[in-house]
């Protein structure tokens, strides 16, 4: 599965592509929704590692607009539950992720993203 929490960690790594290489843009994404266990402690600890604007734009590419543009000051349970849903419960099964800088395409099939590069594309 590519869930948005994983997507938020991925960056393009093709040769020479070192800036503006994140976040990868979804195209033709087929998604599935699957409930998972809510873990507020994990979410609070994970917040500082999140790239928020990237998460917001990627969620919108997948049709989810439930999160605010700015991180709210109060991380209450309602907010954390919304965040949990966006990060963990939207699964991209098929589709393409495109680098905003070099336009390299990374395919997702059967829930597994293929980040392999050809030997000559490796930095």
């Amino acid at each position, binding site marked *: *599965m*590519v*869930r948005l*929490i*994983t997507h938020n*960690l*991925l*960056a*393009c*790594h093709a040769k020479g592509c070192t800036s503006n290489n*994140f976040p990868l843009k979804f195209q033709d994404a087929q998604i599935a929704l*699957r409930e998972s266990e809510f*873990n507020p*402690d*994990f979410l*609070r*600890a*994970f917040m500082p*590692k999140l*790239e928020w604007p990237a998460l917001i734009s990627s969620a919108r590419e997948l049709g989810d607009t439930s999160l605010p543009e700015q991180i709210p000051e109060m991380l209450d349970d309602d907010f954390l539950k919304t965040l949990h849903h966006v990060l963990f419960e939207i699964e991209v099964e098929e589709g393409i992720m495109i680098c905003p800088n070099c336009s390299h395409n990374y395919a997702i099939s*059967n*829930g*597994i*993203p*293929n*980040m*392999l*590069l050809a*030997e000559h594309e*490796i*930095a």
Partner: protein
Amino acid sequence: MLVFVTVGTFQFDALVDAVLDPALLKALRNKGYTRLVVQYGLYKEPNAPTEREGVQIELWPAKPSLSADFERADLVIGHAGAGTILEVLRLGKPLIVVPNPTLLHNHQTELANALGEYLSTSSVADLVATVDAFDAANLTKFPAFDGTLLDSPSPSMAPAVTMTSVDASPDVYEQDNVHSVYDEIASHFSQTRYKPWPIIAAFLQSIHPTWIGLDSGTGNGKYLPLCCPWTIGLDRSRNLLEIARTAGGAVREVVQGDVLDNSWRTGVFDYAISIATIHHLATPERRRRAIQQLLNAVSPHHGRVLIYVWATRQDEQSKRSVPITDASNGQDVFVPWVSQKDQTRVFNRYYHMFADGELDALVVSAAQEMGLHVGAGASEGVEIVQQGWERSNHFVELRRYKR
């Protein structure tokens, strides 16, 4: 016969109460146990006679070392700490584990369940019934620590390991002699190999439950169920990943990628493991690069890394006969894997067996090439937390720091 009960350094009063209860003592007595030694940790007032139900009772708050107690015990009952489990199983002592349900996230239960065939798991409420039904003969003998992670099922029957040398460009060589082999034989590992490697289980258990991790070269994903909520499995083999994505019966996050790349935001992981992976890379430069990508993947402030590779120095219990010509630089070999369906089909996997000191030297040069100080005391660097050899493998644990 003697029973030793330990709760480690935690408070686990319910277990102490349960073992001192007449019903349990009676059950133990029925099984022939006449002495009970209890290390009770932070329990406030264990109020028990020195003898009850025909069992002699000895109470200790804490002990500097439990090894002697494990050694003389005929049965150990304990909380499910990784250290306790490993030590007791290695001594070949029968073990009943009672995970402490009050501890965070209950990783203890997961570890005990994962090791289920080697020990008996119980709960405080079921302890009497567990003792009544307990028969050490029903437990699987704890295995020797074998070298190859994805090994053929019966090493003694396997054809011999043979020497090889890398005679093509390394990426092509790895494609032919590592990646395509694993893709071909992957389905076999969905059925047979789900035993966790105990040392690594202990490392994973020490990881904070809110940390995120990378299992670089995850194979069939055997370690993914053993750690924190968010560990991502990376592998080159699509067919192994199809197995890893549901490892342990839950949906796992897996990514197809190369351990020589860093397809992540730099430093985003809290920890990374590389178990039995780097030894499949065909040149020292590529092995060094793989280590650098692990160091790149983890936080420069606190990132932890554990690496295991196969060693030229083989354990005496290893049934493999390994040709060694060059003890100082390691040895390139083919390890055969015989198809169970068709015994005439033999797949040779390439391994670089590491010489003594070779992994450590590689780690040092990898870090220095990145401009990182090796050792404590600089403003930024990599500390070698532990390194060693165990049962046919070299391992090293690293920690990045930045002040």
